[in-house]
């Protein structure tokens, strides 16, 4: 990890010719404010909300892992450790902003308005999980790494053409920054000066491949230079820093300056997915412990406690509330009607062609037996 950047102002960080990629931090691992200049303007309620959301995400992670082990959830990519990176970024957006998440970015989707039971249905592999309300400005989690980056081009350009005061926001991982679509996404959006924020959540590992094997570039944020847009490295375990940078990037983009690339340095305390990956096979011993000390919840908890805004009791309440919410959502997922192949066929085209219609009739006959 590079040295914390204390010297630069937000305006300087957001210059396309800023070639300083030191890590920006506001809260250190002890919960001390180390960069008051960049401190975002947040009310006590907003600060508490962010902590509640991080605790919610961690509880969701713990329950999702357990539910997956019980066979009550399917595909699940752990988020444990990335709470500051994910909640910090989504908290700085508005509901009118459009988000294009990767497969690990389900928490942002839920915070953006995706009902929790739909997130669970997505995990299980049920179409209802992706049947989005009209006012949910988002796409389902993207499985093809990098595709969300090129799709962001069009969403952002569309917003610019419609003169909306909004941004398109997308996330990928450190491995994803090696994809062609990663570069095309930031480059097109830069060329069109379209309002977008591109996140690289650098958690050090793309399954078993360490970040150093992705590129010889010392930071991933500096890849922004290739597109001529600002790139910023931020402490992804520090929610205040992620929030502050995202908020500033949003203002910069909405003002017509074009996109920003943000690299959040974070860590996943756990496997790549729950589909059989075991980090013990490839991660050196001790790395986990090193990162545990940087846990985003620990430092933000300390910070809020120092302001008398947080207590164990409060935290327990959030955990209990979240567990209840999860229970309800799982129940809703359980009672969602089984999928029908005839419905799949009906969702292929606005008007089914002859052969599709034949198949609809055939499956409907079977399903109605």
């Amino acid at each position, binding site marked *: 990890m590079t040295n914390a950047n204390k010297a630069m102002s937000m305006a300087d960080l957001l210059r396309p010719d800023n070639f300083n990629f030191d890590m920006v931090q506001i809260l250190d691992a002890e919960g001390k404010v180390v960069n008051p200049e960049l401190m975002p303007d947040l009310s006590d309620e907003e600060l508490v909300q962010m902590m509640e959301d991080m605790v919610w995400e961690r509880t969701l992670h713990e329950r999702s892992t357990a539910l997956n082990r019980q066979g009550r959830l399917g595909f699940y990519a752990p988020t444990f450790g990335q709470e500051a990176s994910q909640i910090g970024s989504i908290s700085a957006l508005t509901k009118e902003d*459009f988000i294009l998440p990767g497969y690990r970015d389900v928490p942002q989707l839920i915070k953006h308005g995706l009902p929790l039971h739909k997130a669970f249905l997505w995990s299980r592999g049920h179409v209802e999980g992706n049947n*989005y309300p009209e006012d949910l400005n988002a796409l*389902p989690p993207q499985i*093809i790494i990098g595709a969300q980056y090129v*799709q962001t081009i069009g969403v952002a350009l569309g917003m610019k053409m419609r003169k909306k005061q909004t941004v398109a926001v997308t996330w990928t991982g450190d491995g994803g920054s090696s994809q062609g679509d990663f570069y*095309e996404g930031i480059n097109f959006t830069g060329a069109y000066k379209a309002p977008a924020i591109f996140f690289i959540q650098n958690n050090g590992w793309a399954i078993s491949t360490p970040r150093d094997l992705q590129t010889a570039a010392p930071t991933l944020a500096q890849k922004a230079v290739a597109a001529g847009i600002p790139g910023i490295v931020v402490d992804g375990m520090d929610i205040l820093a992620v929030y502050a940078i995202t908020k500033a990037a949003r203002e910069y983009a909405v003002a017509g300056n074009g996109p920003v690339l943000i690299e959040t340095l974070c860590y996943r305390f756990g496997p790549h997915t729950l589909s059989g990956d075991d980090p013990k096979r490839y991660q050196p011993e001790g790395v986990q412990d090193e990162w545990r000390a940087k846990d985003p919840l620990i430092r933000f908890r300390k910070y809020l406690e120092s302001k008398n805004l947080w207590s164990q009791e409060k935290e327990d309440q959030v955990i209990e509330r979240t567990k209840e919410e999860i229970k309800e959502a799982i129940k809703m997922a359980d009672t969602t009607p089984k999928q029908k192949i005839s419905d799949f066929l009906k969702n292929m085209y606005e008007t089914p062609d002859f052969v599709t219609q034949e198949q609809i009739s055939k499956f409907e006959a079977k399903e109605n037996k």
Partner: protein
Amino acid sequence: MAQKTMIEAITEALAIELRNDKETLIFGEDVGLNGGVFRATQGLQAEFGEDRVFNTPLAESGIGGMAIGLALQGFRPIPEIQFFGFVFEVFDSVAAQAARTRYRMGGSRNLPITFRAPFGGGVHTPELHADNLEGLIAQNPGIKVVIPSGPYDAKGLLLSSIRDNDPVFFLEHMKLYRSFREEVPEKEYTIPLGKANIVKEGTDVSIITYGAMVREALKAAETLAKEGISVEILDLRTVQPLDIEAIVATTEKTGRVVMVQEAQRQGGVGAKVMAEITERAVLSLEAPIGLVAAPDTVFPFGQAEHDWLPNAHDIEEKVREIHAF
């Protein structure tokens, strides 16, 4: 009515739709001020402005992703892929993303995108410009593939493609761009997608084909008529979805079918048409279904195109064989 080339008919359709629907957008490599490498978008930027017709950076994948994003913002994108051989660069956006969106989002979103791309042999293009890759797109559920065989069809089919609320891949054969003129009405008209067209009625053998091979089939039919063989020619016009009713009807009418495509034998949509006929109309067949297709090699070096591409003589030979079976 005026005599127009296919490229003129395409430009006209694009202009009509830019005028009709303010959500339509045309973009791609050099489609703006330059008017496209084949002049398909000639004059459109001047008439409709840089916000409606504009150039992109040189990256097909970015173009495809951009089309998807713009469609999600309520636009009706008409991106151009400069040559169809470059589709491999944008295959994810076309097949894994655009084609699947209505399905994967349970019908809650749709992407009304019309991808345009020139393709086809006979004009001595460099490598990977002319390849017949329609079979690759056609096998992905969720996207339609349209291939006009001349100016009149091109205009009506392109208008329908743009207005379709699902993604369409509209393939324009380079040899057909300017090789002949045809009556094309000035006014707007549409030709339904998924509907084939009998371009010549006949009684002895049906030729089912599409694209540039329609002209070759017409040539062959003239020769064959002199030999007393009456050929019916069905131009598929849309190769996905297929017009099953028309395919079955012509099969039942003549009892003998020759499928003709420019693509390699292992590519195209010929095998699929043949399979549909065997499942649906085998008892009407008096002979096996013939297939005229290119050899199963990579698309030929320019100088070998003449020997490689299927032509009227190949069609005549196959029709005689099937007729005499």
